[in-house]
């Protein structure tokens, strides 16, 4: 099994995300050949005009969606961390949706089974990242995220220190 720090997922930088929903449009287009946010595997949340962020599957270690599924319809790929769905087993009960802390696994409006980000495995790269006009989306590992957070925290500390001088 891959180690957690090698597992990649799509992360949005709230500083850069402007809430334009292009990720939603391109996701539904890539997956379903139609423009429809309800069929997107990434969703934008605008809490208020200043707080915008796209959210999608985090490919958790020991994913609660998989654990919650009473029909064993969900599994996690050992190789990539992708959540895999057996469409024949899923009956759309929604336990996985309830279990996910991020709202990243959703019920498809037509198939009535769940759908979740697979990093556009058929396209070779996540299309939302490719299309995001603000470069707000990146493919990261937990380690990279932690590094980024550390660096920005330290930068901020030193900027504040400068200001106080």
């Amino acid at each position, binding site marked *: 099994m891959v180690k957690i720090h090698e597992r990649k997922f799509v992360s949005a930088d709230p500083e850069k995300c*402007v*809430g*334009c*929903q*292009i990720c939603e*449009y*391109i996701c*539904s*287009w890539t997956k*379903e*050949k*139609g*423009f*429809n*946010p*309800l*069929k997107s595997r990434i969703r934008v*949340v*605008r809490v*208020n*005009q*200043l707080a*915008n962020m796209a959210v999608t599957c985090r490919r958790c270690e020991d994913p609660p969606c998989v654990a919650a599924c009473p029909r064993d319809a969900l599994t996690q790929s050992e190789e990539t961390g992708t959540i895999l769905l057996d469409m024949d087993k899923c009956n759309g009960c929604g336990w996985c949706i309830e279990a996910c802390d991020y709202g990243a696994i959703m019920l498809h*409006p037509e198939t009535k089974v769940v759908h979740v980000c697979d990093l556009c495995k058929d396209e070779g790269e996540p299309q939302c990242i490719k*299309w995001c*006009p*603000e470069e707000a989306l990146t493919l990261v590992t937990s380690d990279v995220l932690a590094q980024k957070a550390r660096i920005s925290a330290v930068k901020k500390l030193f900027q504040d220190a400068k200001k106080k001088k």
Partner: protein
Amino acid sequence: MHGYAGKILYVDLNTGKTRVSPLNMDYAKKYIGGIGLGMRLWLDNSKAGVEPLSPDNPLILTIGPISGTIFPTAGNGHAFTAKSPATHAIGEAVAHGTFGSELKRAGYDAIILKGKAEKPSYLWIDDDSVQLLDAAHLTGKSPSETEDTIKNELGDYYIRVAAIGLAGEKLSNIACIINEKTRAAGRTGLGAVMGSKNLKAIAVRGTHDIVPAKPDEFMEMVKEFNERMKGPATQKYRTLGTAENVLVHNALYCMPTRNYNNAHFEDADKVSGEVLNEKFVAKIIGCSSCAMRCEHEVVVPEGPYKGTMTRMEYETLWAMGPYCGINRLDTIIKGMELANYYGMDAISAGVTVGFAMDCYENGILTKKDLDGIEANFGNSEALIQLLEKMGKREGIGDILAEGVRIAGQKIGKGAEKLAQHIKGLEVTGYDLRCLKTAALGFAVSFRGADHNRHGAYAFDVKGKVDRLKAEKGRGKLVRDMENLYALIDSFIVCKFSRGTYYKGLADMAKLYSLVTGIEMTPEELDKSGARINTVARLINIREGLGRKDDTLPWKVMNMPIPDEGPVKGAVVTQAELDLLLDDYYDSRGWTLEGVPTAATLKELGMDSLSKIVKGKQEA
């Protein structure tokens, strides 16, 4: 069907009954969508002389054929059309955000709202299910609060809502309709039309896929335009934003200041786009499907208005700032937030306060008349107090909420001359005395004083013509721009993206064809642009307007620019205006009275409407 949903929803608010009709595809091809389709449908669904605030004035909501796609800026707009209570002419207003794309996914190209609900209500469109719900609990709420409450009670965060505020409920002529908290279909008082129907809000959820007719070529075009959206054509909107205009207009002495008493503001550097961005802009956000993003969100960091958050653009900054002689950005931002809170068009609201201040300084309105407010130019507190009163229609605010034309008439004593409007719609941030191409565009604009019907100011501001000169040829310049702007508002794409259409109408025709599958040429599009402007003209003629109404505000024609500088003494004379109007009517194929001739109507395929102007077409 591609591009168009193919359906029109009729809602009879008297009974709550709804029906769906197929979209007339002849209208779709000829009038595209947005304001073009809206005005054409309004004409069919109204009688001559209809009172704007009566149940018989239909309120029409339209989107365009590109709505709901990923195309940058083109997916997200919507337009309202009705007879305007401010102008008694055709009124229309476009807004962007998220509402338009949701409506397309719900499966409608247009919604025609007739009658009046018996009690405060809101319309809930959930794909095919359409219901009129009780809105008693929403009465008095702001558009933003209304949006949140509706999302909450219907239990879906992604429902989109367009709503009026208290100004609309109280039938103010400057009331607007807002979606996505800060995005207003602002001009011509259509919020009052919605209020007169007891309709507080329209909520929409759409679940259908939108698929263009030629997907591969369409996606190639999207890629190309996403790149263009990041380029020089949109740089202004992505960086300083429209507020950049403050210093540009001020340097050219074309920024109306203190209700047109000046054309230059000595404190412009205190309210500039530069200062706004440095001290107040907290985030720039985007509408649905827009790779440009332009919406400058400002937050007041300190002082009495600390924490106030709103969107800010040049026009509203100008109206509440220089036009009222106010040099404090925190107050201007608070004023903008109040306009959104009460659901008032912030341009008209600011211009109306500037008018009231002028009346006060001239002794036409006293401190007593103004409920104790000393409304000198530059008095920040007076701006806030007057806006509050206008929003609630309390005291003097009751009269001011009618807009400057009616307020001027009611106040009398010469106040009419201080009311700077065209056809009853308040002026915008371009001093027409020294921008004579713009002056023509403003004079003939079918919705009254407005830069967004033609953008003709660009010729003057960019120095492509002698801006102080009225000469032949300006008519065609305005005509062509009017056609383009009518198309932009009918597609609907965003005006801020207009520069990305490098090949102009050829690019737009290609976009239309790829999305709808209907062949379109630039020539045919130009004709549609002409047709949309002509149908507006026909409506206005039917409603009693004519050449006499294609005029300019009193000060523009009677008070030369007093400021020392490059345009001192500039004014538009009646002779100049007449020359410009003659030239414009000629370029449109209209008579000297501004009536489309039989030949013009025939050429545009509008013969069936010639009965409106029968007997009026003699040159």
